[in-house]
């Protein structure tokens, strides 16, 4: 019988089935960070349990790490305690950790693929909702809570109910200036933040095939913002080329065997999906969010909506609250909105391609006077080194951006990088929730090139006209 990509990977990981239809699902890889793991390790200790398979887990601190002044270590004592707890837990239980100061340290969702720790066809979990990122490598990759982190550590499995499968097909040529991020935001605008709830999503179509692996990671990363726990892209030459030669990728005969298995990781031609959505790139412009949910998104050429366009009362109330929080009015052209800060980074957009795109816009320009801070935060020490070897750091600093050390940084503002109340930010991160980047802060989600252009102009602009404006 014809199978979807999701079903193929799922079936390869079923250990046993329960009477109610849930299964015990084997987990190949667990990525661990400092925020959602201490209580899980504590649980193991209290119960006197050991990790089931210690080499299946790999850890790195990312949420709390400072991105500047690393020579002083972590100055926030509470954050320091948490990072030290990760160090001591990894040591006690024998888990490999890329610590602060290690070139391989960075955001878990950048580090995993970069190190070849995530391979096609794997099941991957992490106590972080953006684990969906790894679906770009045709893996089933899901965010889980801390109790489940402990469950995976102790048993290498999860009890799971099989989700339904939705295919979102995006066809057409990707226009210049349209990135994986724009495709992701456009999809969320179309299906809503609960549109994918209960589903695993496969992203397909010629536009998805055109995306680089980095672009596919940005797309899968934001699957959770559409409500689905995992998003996937089928294996093609780009996937294989990306994985080959990575530190933890197989080599020699093992590589040949693996590659041949991975080539089958695509939906069969006549596979049937529970739901299908068809979209076309002709309708996709650079996207900007205006409100406090990723579904509150419009094309750069548009304006904020009218309250009268809301589909029902609940949405109208949500929009009213969002306008008040964001200090915006109905029907305001997006390009008329001035910004105070710019953040280029996060597990969505902190890979080398993202910095190349942003640097191409910033090169030879200066950050606008009304922008108080424009920061660029690489996703890992290796991304940072690569960008520096290409001279991208110099382009950014010459233009007035700050070039920082790797970490989650102002995506969620657990470290010192944050918005002050009332500040407005063009951000390449993934959530524009109230207070996400700092209490009272106002977030607009965009692609890296759009963020760089907003930094230069001091307001949002359409990068498709950049050469005419710049």
């Amino acid at each position, binding site marked *: 019988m014809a199978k979807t990509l999701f079903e193929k990977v799922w079936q390869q990981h079923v250990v*046993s089935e329960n009477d109610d239809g*849930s299964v*015990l699902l084997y987990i190949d890889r667990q990525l661990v960070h400092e925020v959602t793991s201490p209580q899980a390790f504590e649980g193991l200790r209290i119960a006197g349990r050991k990790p089931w398979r210690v080499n299946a887990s790999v850890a790195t601190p990312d949420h709390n790490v400072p991105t500047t002044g690393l020579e002083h270590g972590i100055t926030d004592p509470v954050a320091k305690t948490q990072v030290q707890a990760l160090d001591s837990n990894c040591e006690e239980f024998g888990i490999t950790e890329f610590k602060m100061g290690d070139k391989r340290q960075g955001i878990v969702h950048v580090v995993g693929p970069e190190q070849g720790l995530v391979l096609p066809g794997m099941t991957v979990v992490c106590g972080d909702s953006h684990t969906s990122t790894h679906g770009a490598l045709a893996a089933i990759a899901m965010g*889980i*809570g801390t109790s489940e982190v402990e469950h995976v550590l102790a048993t290498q499995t999860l*009890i799971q109910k099989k989700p339904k499968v939705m295919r979102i097909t995006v066809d057409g040529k990707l226009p210049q200036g349209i990135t994986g991020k724009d495709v992701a935001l456009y999809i969320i605008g179309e299906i809503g933040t609960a549109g994918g709830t209960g589903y695993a999503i496969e992203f397909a179509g010629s536009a998805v095939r055109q995306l680089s692996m980095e672009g596919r990671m940005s797309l899968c990363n934001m699957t959770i913002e559409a409500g689905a726990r995992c998003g996937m892209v089928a294996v093609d030459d780009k996937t294989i080329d990306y994985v080959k030669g990575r530190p933890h990728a197989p080599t020699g005969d*093992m590589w040949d*065997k693996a590659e041949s298995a991975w080539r089958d990781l695509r939906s069969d031609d006549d596979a049937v999906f529970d739901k299908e959505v068809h979209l076309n790139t002709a309708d996709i412009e650079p996207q900007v969010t205006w409100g406090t949910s990723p579904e509150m998104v419009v094309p750069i050429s548009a304006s904020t909506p009218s309250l009268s366009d809301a589909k029902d009362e609940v949405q109208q109330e949500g929009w009213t609250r969002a306008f008040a929080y964001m200090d915006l009015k109905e029907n305001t052209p997006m390009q008329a909105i001035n910004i105070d800060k710019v953040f280029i980074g996060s597990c969505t957009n902190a890979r080398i391609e993202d910095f190349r795109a942003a640097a191409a816009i910033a090169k030879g320009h200066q950050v606008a006077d009304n922008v108080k801070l424009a920061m660029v935060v690489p996703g890992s020490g290796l991304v940072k080194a690569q960008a520096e070897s290409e001279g991208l750091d110099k382009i950014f600093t010459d233009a007035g951006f700050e070039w920082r050390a790797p970490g989650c940084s102002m995506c969620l503002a657990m470290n010192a990088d944050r918005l002050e109340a009332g500040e407005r930010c063009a951000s390449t991160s993934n959530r524009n*929730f109230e207070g996400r980047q700092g209490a009272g802060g106002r977030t607009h989600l965009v692609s890296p090139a759009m963020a760089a252009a907003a930094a230069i102009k001091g307001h949002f602009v359409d990068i498709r006209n950049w050469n005419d404006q710049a």
Partner: protein
Amino acid sequence: MQAFTRLNGLVVPLDRANVDTDAIIPKQFLKSIKRTGYGPFLFDEWRYEDVGQPEMDCSNRPIRKDFVLNQPRYQGAEIMLARENFGCGSSREHAPWAIADYGISCVIAPSFADIFYNNCFKNGILPVVLKDEEMDVLFSETESHEGYKLDVDLEAQTVATPSGQVFTFEVDDFRKHCLFNGLDDIGLTLQQANHIKAYEGKRKQEAPWLFT
């Protein structure tokens, strides 16, 4: 884990859609390495005028009087009503920890985000999905009757109003069994250790690159 069997409790209505876990418990409280103590910081930005910090004393903080959790009539609530997509966003289990620590052990909404929904069952909280029109009835009755209580029965899978209206809800058998009995599911899974080992043995032959 705390079991959930049946609850007759005071209801607080949070009439908002897409309530995210950043709102339920803001990021600064995620630096704790404990599972407890989050209750005073539940909905911190909506509940207080100032910005909360971990371990601060909340008894003298300026509160936002209009926020529903601060209204005198809803003090001591054990059941919360919300709108669609409750618990979206971050996977932080600190969100259900904060809800449970505050004293709420049942959340009723038309839909929940998947990860949050899962996390509730690990922490003695029953998430109940009812239809939009049933939610409308509950919101309306809660707001118009001070001291409004609901009777939530996990075994019967019902929510009963004081006037005798009964709404039924779905819950997976295994989750229900674990929550009803307060079971540690790691212990249950380890009873299948032989199955897991057998799976690994077979899988190592098929895909050895996964075990290096």
